[in-house]
């Protein structure tokens, strides 16, 4: 079998620019205003040359580097790695959305990407109109869409609402329709980025079935997911990325094992906050955050799973005297919903620090029963209703996995809380049922 995609020495560089934080902390409003007026003036006078102006502080960041591998026809390649490992950047380059900085990719065949379902859906248009529009955006011809139309509608189960604007659709219907269009693309290469976690359980099963079918047609599939169950059930081969580099490749089982081992070896969820986005008046500053999943016996786990304890340790430094401030740790899901707010005020505690002092604050979240998925932790320091000394919305990110003991079927079911439950099934005799009617 021939290679469908050949990737040679691929790299992608981004330039990050951030303000000097020492300076930013003591910046007066007047300085901000004069600087922005100056910048604006400069931009108006030389709109095209502003990129040549020296940037105050910029840094190169390689999202991908020296990636080389081959994909053969009919292969289903799973791409795994931590957040920021470069998985999505790789798919973006392959789908030609963004350009590589170095290297070369040779593709044999049409590429379609399912980077996000429903791209280009217009809320005012009807379901029927959106099928055509979305199909065209994904690269289908009108003939192709017409031919597949019934199949798409059937798959999405929206026959009754075809002539209703999609803004009146329930979110489930919307996603079903969007996935249905994308799943019927007739391309040789399909790129999939974390789109299977949509809809209700039955629809998810349908999607997984469809993905199997797509792959058995001899199409080549590249799949990015944080869900190890999806990766191991759908892919035939796997690669592991870390900090933009290709670390390992092989069978899904082997790579998933390597990945999980690596996660447990390195300090999980550790993050230096000097480059994070901070808000607040800067009277105090969070320097770092680290997270450790621990089991009931206080032993460190390889990864966070439903029911484990999460130990967060924060280091905070005071830049002025801080009296009776509150420290808060908040956990958000991927939709940005705040799920947990643990703070010292709830327990009647406060943090008092002298100027220049540092403190380590530990939070132990017990029996965390979040559903598998990606969560972010935010931090806050200040006095409620008076001032924010420091706040970091995205301090660190972590994955929750399903716990092995209480999950036999690990498809990504919706919901946020992995409640412990028992069940009991009793068949009801027909006669009993009749009586109770």
């Amino acid at each position, binding site marked *: 079998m021939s290679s469908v995609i050949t990737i040679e020495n691929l790299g992608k560089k*981004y330039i990050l620019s951030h303000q000097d934080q020492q300076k930013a902390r003591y910046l007066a409003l007047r300085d901000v205003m004069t600087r922005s007026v100056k910048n*604006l003036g400069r*931009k*108006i006078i030389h*709109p095209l040359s502003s990129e040549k102006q020296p940037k105050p502080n910029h840094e190169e960041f390689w999202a991908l580097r020296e990636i080389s591998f081959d994909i053969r026809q009919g292969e289903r390649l799973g791409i795994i790695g931590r957040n920021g490992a470069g998985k999505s950047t790789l798919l*973006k*380059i*392959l*789908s*030609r*959305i*963004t*350009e*590589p*900085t*170095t*290297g*070369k*990719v*040779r*593709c*044999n*065949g*049409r*590429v379609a*990407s399912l*980077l*996000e379902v429903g*791209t*280009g859906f*217009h809320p*005012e*248009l009807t379901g029927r*109109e959106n099928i*055509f*529009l979305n199909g*065209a*955006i*994904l*690269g289908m*011809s*009108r003939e192709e869409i017409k031919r597949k139309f019934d199949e798409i509608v059937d798959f999405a189960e929206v026959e009754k609402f075809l002539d209703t604007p999609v803004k009146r659709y329930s979110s489930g219907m919307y996603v079903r329709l969007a996935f249905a269009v994308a799943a019927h693309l007739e391309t*040789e290469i399909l790129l999939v980025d974390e789109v299977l976690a949509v809809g209700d359980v039955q629809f998810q099963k349908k999607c997984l079935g469809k993905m199997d079918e797509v792959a058995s047609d001899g199409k080549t599939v590249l799949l990015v997911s944080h869900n190890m169950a999806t990766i191991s059930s759908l892919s035939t081969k796997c690669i592991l990325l870390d900090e933009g580099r290709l670390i390992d490749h092989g069978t899904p089982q082997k790579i998933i094992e390597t990945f999980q081992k690596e996660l447990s070896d390195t300090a999980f969820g550790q993050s230096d906050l000097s480059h994070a986005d901070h808000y607040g008046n800067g009277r105090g500053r969070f320097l770092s955050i680290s997270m450790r999943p621990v089991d009931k016996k206080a032993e460190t786990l390889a990864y966070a799973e439903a029911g484990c304890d999460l130990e967060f340790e924060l280091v905070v430094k005071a830049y002025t005297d801080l009296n009776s401030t509150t420290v808060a740790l908040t956990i958000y899901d991927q939709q940005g919903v705040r799920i947990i707010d643990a703070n010292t005020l709830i327990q009647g505690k406060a943090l008092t620090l002298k100027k220049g002092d540092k403190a380590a604050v530990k939070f132990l979240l017990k029996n965390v029963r979040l559903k598998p998925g990606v969560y972010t932790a935010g931090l806050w320091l200040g006095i409620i209703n008076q001032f924010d000394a420091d706040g970091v919305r995205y301090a660190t990110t972590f994955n929750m996995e399903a716990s092995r003991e209480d999950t036999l079927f690990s498809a990504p079911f919706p919901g946020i809380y992995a409640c412990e439950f028992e069940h009991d099934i009793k068949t009801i005799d027909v006669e009993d049922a009749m009586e109770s009617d």
Partner: protein
Amino acid sequence: MNDKTDFTFVIEAGRTERHYWKDLWSYRELFYFLAWRDILVRYKQTAIGVSWSIFRPLLTMIVFTIIFGKLARMPSGGAPYPILVFAAMLPWQFFGNALAESSNSLIDNANMLTKVYFPRLIVPASAVIVALVDFLISFVLLLLLMALYRFVPDWRILTLPLFLLMAFFASFGCGMWLSALNVKYRDFRYIVPFIVQFGLYISPVGFSSDVVPDKWRLLYSLNPMVGVIDGFRWAIIGGESRIYLPGFIMSVVVTLLVSLVGIRYFRKTERQFADII
């Protein structure tokens, strides 16, 4: 069914443009769908719908006729003043709408740009097409107006598509340029409405360009819409109206130049759109 060699392509830094025009052709249906979407969506949830594309030029025409024709008593060169104004209003509204829509088009479609690949040129181009549809609707209004004044155009009206083409390139060229600039500098979001508003008064919409002194006319024609509007008047009104040829050529040259620069700037920057939008 498919000959795969057809789809072989190479992705490399700075090399995306090799199959650019071929891609553009194979995505022609998307172009049509985007224009169709914008037309469908344009007047959704409005009470009087498409009538808006008739009311807007009509009301402006009435105001201009009163101010320039009745109060300022500008010369019309024999034609009824409303027709003089409307013949200029049509291309100007087309230009203004096209410019406003296309310069914002990339940003309005940002979620598409960052998620799917397609030749980006389609986005501002389809915005110009939407403005063209509005133009055709108001053109019907011009015909009605001519019938009302029992004004019969001569053979010159057949040359109108030529001037329309010129208006198309003027707005497409500027639109492309501004839309690409807008991705990087959102300042253009505020500059474009200003250009459109200001341009209405400095272009010969409310008056005939004959009122401009001859020694300034060539300079005045640096505005490409001067040539377009003069052309429209020449074609529609006929009779005594004439084209100031050096000025017209100047407008054509400026139009071509703007289109060329616009397309070059767009092509140069479009590869980074997804990263900086």
